[in-house]
Each structure stands twice: as C-alpha cells, then as structure tokens.
C-alpha cells in the first residue's frame, strides 16, 4: 500500500517539521505542568498534552460531535493539508470508493466525566451533551466520515493500545477486495481522567518522566495524539505527491496469556512480528530498525525485548528504540503515531534517540547480547553514511493481549 498523505499531531507539535526538530534536538514533549494536570492534583506524573485542543472549534454542521477527542481529530485533519488530499481522491473516485478505519481506546469519554464531575442534572446537560456523537465508541469514525465526506465502509477499532496499528490490516483487506480505491486509516486518543486513574490503579503510571528500557524505568506517561494516513494501491503523481515509503506488511496476534500483563517471553508479540515479516517477504534480520511499543513499564519492555531477541540471529544489526520518551504513551493513537514516525525516519534517513535512557537495564543487555542489536542514545543521521534504513517495523501491543506489527519499506535509498 502506498502512502499518499499523512498527518500527525502530538505533544511535540503539529505536522512533520516540529517532530523532526524535536528528534534532532532530543527534546521531549512531556511535561509535569500541563493544563490537564489541574484536573488531577492528586497524581504526580508527566503528560504528553497537545496544547490548545480545548479551544479548537468545529464547523457548525459537526458541532454535536464536540469533545476533546474530535477536536484533536479535526486539528489533525487540517494539518499538512491532509483533508485537501482526501478531497482530491474523493473527486476522482467518489465518496463511496473511499473507506475509513480509525482506532481509539476511550473515544470522547472525557465529556461524560465532565458531566459526573460537575454533577449536572438532566435539564442542564440535555441540550449540549450528545452521548452518541461523543463517548459512543464509533464517534471518531462518524465524525471523520462526515468531516471528510467519506461514504465507503467505515468503523472504529478499539483494541486498547494496538487499535490504530490494526487499522492497516483492514485497509489492506478492503483494497485487496477492490471495494475501495483509497482508505483513510488513523487513530485519535485524548487525555481523560479514567485512563490516568485507571493506569495509576494498576501501578503503571510513572511519577517521573518515562524511561523506556532503562534499569530504573517505573511506568508510563500518558500522552495524546491524532494521526491519519491516506493509503492506496496506486500512486497519484499528478494531484498529490506520494511518499517514497510504502506499507509492506501487517501482522496480528493474541497473547492468550493475561488480560493486562504481557507474556514474559513476548510469545504473542513474536507471532505478530513474524506474520508482518512474512507478509513483507523479508526475514526479521533484514529489519534496519524496530520502533518498540516500549511503554517503559518493567513488564512490557522486558517482554518485548525478550520477544525481539528470540527472533534475531547473531548477525542481526538492527537498531531498536522506543519513542514514548518524546510523546508519552498515546494509547489508542500509539500505533498510528509511531507508524508515521517510521515513515518519517525512512524519508529523512534518521533514527531518533531512545529518549531518557541513562542505563540500559542489565537484563535487557543480556537478552540483546545474542545479536548485534543496538539502542541509539543520540539521534542518528544516516545520510552520507554507509548505513541505510530500508525496512523498519513498528510494534503496538494492548490490553487483552492484543498485538500488531507493521512493516514499512522505502523503495530505493540513494
């Protein structure tokens, strides 16, 4: 599948440039003093907040959809001219021939939280609160279809933190069946109290900045993000300039182990990675880089690195890193966030640092010692060197033991 267009908004900023700048400077988007912190004074942590989401206005016809999640979706669709590129393809093929599949874990639940918090009675909220268009789990798909004028097949995938990686498998199926000419895939998850308190109850929220793979890592920082990609089997050099990057393989699996704890050896994760590499028609050894799910919880990072190391041979010289230190864990949007990161890494021939890593966990060092895998501590700029990125993979794993891996390929690397 060719990438016709993509857009991303995270705590690092809107669109490609601020993200590449942050990678180059090693600057995190995480903060311990965001607006959202005021809503949860009892919790000490860093958050990856997108500034100004609450002041985004929606067009009149879509006002009933007003909630933080759809505001972030709207902001993201307006970024990088993404909505205009979708419009070009709709004019070309018609709204019936474009599909849309997006991931989210909590949809617009923040709106319902607000109603309980302010103890509003039925009379005062009935005019403005519309459950069906805010919290209801498919709100994001309804909203994006109407915002983009899409009328093809469409739904929300909600499999926790793998949601917006699994959307790529759906896009493949629709395109392969010939029922659409292009698909908008993506995901949006926005800050809300239930996820912060829920992860906190599980003891998974770090009181400091998150430190993926570090020996002192102690949990996640929750972030928010929105991202979309426009995919097609064809390239459209006339109206829209495509990226030199394509989606080469998607793999999915289940842990069948525990509802909220990953398998210690990353058994399910291995199955997803293998399925993706089989579809991309490459060996795992041929991956130049893996963007880890790398949440910075002790159990996730151990499980994932174990899984990766099981699949790698002695000759593997792959880079691996987590970018959660830049954005926080954007949950249902983590898949699309990091898959767009992989696209940009291939375009720019750049690997960002595994931010906030001081001392690589010695158990992970042992796991990785069997192969030549390395974790970049500084940003790597590969242009002009003899190392290139051609195949990269992004991992996304969620509660319920739900795994997805997506491999991206750059056609030719100069």
């Amino acid at each position, binding site marked *: 599948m060719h990438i016709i267009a993509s857009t991303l908004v995270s705590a690092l900023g809107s669109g490609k440039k601020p993200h590449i700048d942050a990678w180059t400077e090693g600057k995190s988007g995480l903060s311990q003093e965001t607006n959202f912190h005021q809503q949860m004074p009892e919790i000490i942590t860093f958050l990856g907040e997108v500034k100004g989401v609450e002041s985004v206005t929606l067009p009149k016809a879509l006002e009933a959809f007003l909630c933080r999640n759809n505001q972030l979706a709207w902001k993201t669709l307006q970024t990088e001219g993404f909505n205009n590129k979708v419009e070009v393809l709709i004019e070309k093929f018609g709204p019936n021939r474009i599909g849309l599949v997006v991931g989210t874990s909590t949809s617009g639940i923040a709106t319902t939280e607000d109603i309980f918090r302010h103890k509003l009675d039925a009379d005062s909220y009935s005019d403005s609160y519309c459950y069906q268009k805010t919290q209801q789990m498919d709100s994001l798909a309804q909203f994006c279809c109407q915002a983009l004028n899409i009328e093809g097949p469409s739904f929300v995938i909600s*499999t926790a933190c793998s949601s917006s990686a699994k959307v790529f498998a759906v896009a493949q199926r629709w395109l392969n069946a010939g029922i659409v000419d292009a698909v908008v895939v993506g995901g949006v998850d926005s800050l809300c109290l239930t996820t912060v308190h*829920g992860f906190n*109850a599980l003891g998974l929220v770090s009181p400091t900045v998150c430190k993926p793979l570090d020996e002192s890592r102690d949990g996640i920082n929750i972030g928010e993000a929105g991202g979309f990609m426009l995919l097609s089997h064809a390239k459209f050099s006339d109206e829209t300039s495509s990226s030199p990057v394509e989606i080469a393989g998607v793999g999915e699996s289940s842990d069948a182990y525990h509802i909220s704890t990953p398998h210690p050896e990353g058994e399910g994760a291995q199955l997803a990675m293998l399925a993706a590499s089989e579809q991309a028609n490459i060996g795992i050894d041929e991956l130049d880089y893996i963007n880890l799910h790398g949440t910075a919880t002790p159990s996730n990072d151990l499980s994932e690195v174990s899984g990766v190391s099981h699949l790698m041979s002695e000759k593997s010289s792959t880079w691996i890193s987590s970018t959660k230190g830049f954005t926080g864990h954007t949950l249902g949007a983590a898949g699309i966030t990091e898959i767009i990161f992989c696209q940009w890494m291939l375009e720019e021939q750049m690997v960002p640092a595994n931010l906030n890593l001081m001392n690589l966990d010695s158990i992970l060092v042992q796991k990785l010692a069997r192969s030549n895998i390395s974790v970049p501590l500084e940003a790597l700029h590969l242009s002009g060197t003899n190392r290139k990125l051609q195949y990269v993979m992004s991992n996304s794993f969620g509660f*319920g033991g739900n795994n997805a891996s997506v491999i991206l390929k750059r056609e030719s690397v100069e």
Partner: protein
Amino acid sequence: MKAQILSIGLTAPGLVNFETFKKMMLTNQLPDLSKAIEKYSPTFLPANERRRTTATIQLALKTAEEALVSFQQAYPEIDAKLPVLFVCKDGDTLISARMCQAVSEEEPMISPTQFHNSVHNAPAGYWMIGQENQAPASAISVGEYAIANGLLEAVLQSQSYGKPVLMVIYDLPLDELMPVDTVQKSKAPFAFSMILDASKVIESDYPLLSLSLTQDTPFKSLKSNPYTGVPAAEAYPLLQSIALYQSGHEKSDMHFPLNRNNFIKVSLG
C-alpha cells in the same frame, strides 16, 4: 463476496440459542421477551478470570461459545483456534459510567479489574485466554452500521487468513447509570455469532452468504422485529431467513446500511 455459514449462536431475552429460535420460527411462534437471558458462566475460563467477567463480557462469550461448540461438533477435523471479530456499539456502559463517577469523587479511585475490563476488546481478550488461542482478535464499534460492516469485515478476514472466522455482534441497552436522557428504543440485549468461511467450499447445514455493495435504497421490510432498538438486533430478519431457509419459504435479499447512502446487499444461496 461469498462465505459459507458454518455455525450460528444467538442470545436474547426469550431466545436460549439458535436451535430453539429455528424451531420457533418453523412453528410460527414468537419469542417471549419477558423471559430473561439464562444465567451463564464461562466455564472454559480459569476461575480467576471467570469471576471477573461482567454481564456484557458474558453475553459476548456465551454467544461465541455456542457457535464454536456446534462448529467443533460438525467439523472436528478443522482447527478451532479461529481469528475472532467482536462487534459492539457501546462496550460495557455500567463500567464506563462507574469509572466516570469514580473520577468525579473527592478521592478518585478506580478498581484495577474494572479498568482492564473497560477496554472494548475485553471479551476478545477473555475469549482468547479461555480458548488458548493466539490468532488475531479484533473489537470494533460501528453504531447502526454494525451488521453490514461486521459481515463484510468477517468475510474479508476469512479470505485473507484463509480460514473460518468467528464473528460476534452483541449489544446491550445503555446502563441506567449513564447520564443519557434520551428514551432508549429497547431494553433488551441482543447477541448473535456466526462462523463464516470464505476460504474454501465446505458442506454445511446453513446457506451460503453473498454480499455486494449497493446504493439502491432498500424497500422497508414489513416483517416486525420484536428486538428493534440495539444495532445487533437488526440481524433478526436475516437470522429468521436462515432459520427458515431449508424449508424453502424465505429467499428475499436484505439490505443493511454500510455508511451514509451505502448498503450491503445480503443474499442467501
């Protein structure tokens, strides 16, 4: 797009399973909606997991289990560790309302079990654990377009995985704790499951399902649907046609909305 239906499960007030529904349809009886869904416990789960399941999760698991058990009886030679697709509009609204209430308290406190049960793919997660099944599992939400998108996704999954797929479409009315003031059309939960195979020709007691996309506006069905109100129940006329198929008096096509202005035409053959 064609797929063979290999087995069916059905749960709703007044409907114990698909076989009883079929008998009722053949003898022209109407379901008695005042009969609550029978108590169910997912015995295939380890005790720890079993006691953590909620009514929403149990509805999905019961309906999945019915289709799987009859599939295993009919096709003992086929690997029963199938990819699964769970389709539900709202998920567990009792949990989401309780969580929203909890975070509004002076000292917010969410139970860890409640939190991990709140994910939309909780039933899928429990199902895969209980079945020791590492195949892909998906959980989607698509409101009123559930039947068309659910069937399409299940058929395409079966094509791409090259094996049968278990699809469960289940919906419950919003919990009373939800601050929703609109009058709900239904108080009845409704769930059905199908194991569909688009990968090969296979003998079955059930008809072949053919799907095609159309923009033709469907004519309104004159038949009454006692369960109207939740999206899953929109499959009632389809299930009725399947139940009556072998007796030969139900052959008409059905249209299910896929998105605004688009439909999936479903024919049985």
